[in-house]
């Protein structure tokens, strides 16, 4: 582990979800993101952690969630990994279409993609790895400047 990378192996619990969210907020602030982007990043991490704990590991105490943060200097790269049965991304419909708007669930991945610059989902054997990238500079970090 380098000085710019930190990884946490956590129980499959809501406390772990909260810890992942709070840690993301702190690391994003330390990386220099403004308040709005810190909230977006921590919210994306929360959604990924909820998917890992709830849908992936199904609160199984034998299964762990790993959350890793890496500041490359150009971007904050966050990886959330579970040990569940794997997630079929294609089975998650677009929650913003009229037929899905009133569904209670299915917005987590959509929010991750909305808040981060890049989201990659990879099936492991077993488990799912979600990698989220937020560029330190550029349009996503400074949307107001970009719109000028």
């Amino acid at each position, binding site marked *: 582990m380098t000085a710019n990378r930190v990884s946490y192996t956590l129980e499959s619990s*809501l406390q772990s*979800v909260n810890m992942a969210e709070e840690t993301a907020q702190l690391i994003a602030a330390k990386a220099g993101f403004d308040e709005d982007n810190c*909230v977006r990043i921590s*919210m994306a991490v*929360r*959604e990924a952690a*909820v998917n890992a704990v*709830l849908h992936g590991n199904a609160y199984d105490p034998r299964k762990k969630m790993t959350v890793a943060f890496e500041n490359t200097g150009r971007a904050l790269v966050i990886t959330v990994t579970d040990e569940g049965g794997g997630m079929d991304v294609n089975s998650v419909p677009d*929650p*913003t279409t009229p037929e899905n*708007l*009133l*569904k*209670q*669930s299915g*917005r*987590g991945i*959509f*929010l991750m993609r*909305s808040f981060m610059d890049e989201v990659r989902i990879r099936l492991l054997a077993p488990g799912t790895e979600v990698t989220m990238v937020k560029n330190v500079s550029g349009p996503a970090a400074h949307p107001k400047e970009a719109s000028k």
Partner: protein
Amino acid sequence: MSMKSSIRQVNGITIVDLSGRITLGEGSVLVRDMVRDLVTKGQRKILLNLGDVTYIDSSGIGELVSAFTTVRNQGGDLKLLNLTKKVHDLLQITKLYTVFDVKDDEAAAVAAFK
């Protein structure tokens, strides 16, 4: 900060003042139980005041949608009041702003119920 709620009546409208976080396993369950309880007791016109809600995740959004459909399915109406910028932005992103009737003035919100 965990979620808190208080309920009051204004001109026949049930106003629920919520504060704190509406997230998985915390506030979301409270919202679900509270709205179902109100509907069971015959309350059909519900105004959720989210002015002091500091944070909401996708589970919380889902509970707001569920509350909306629960009340609508009983012939009632559920509106939202005083969205913070964070919650407003979330509803915009998820396109739910077009679903909910959102107000920023309590008197106007109460008057908007038929």
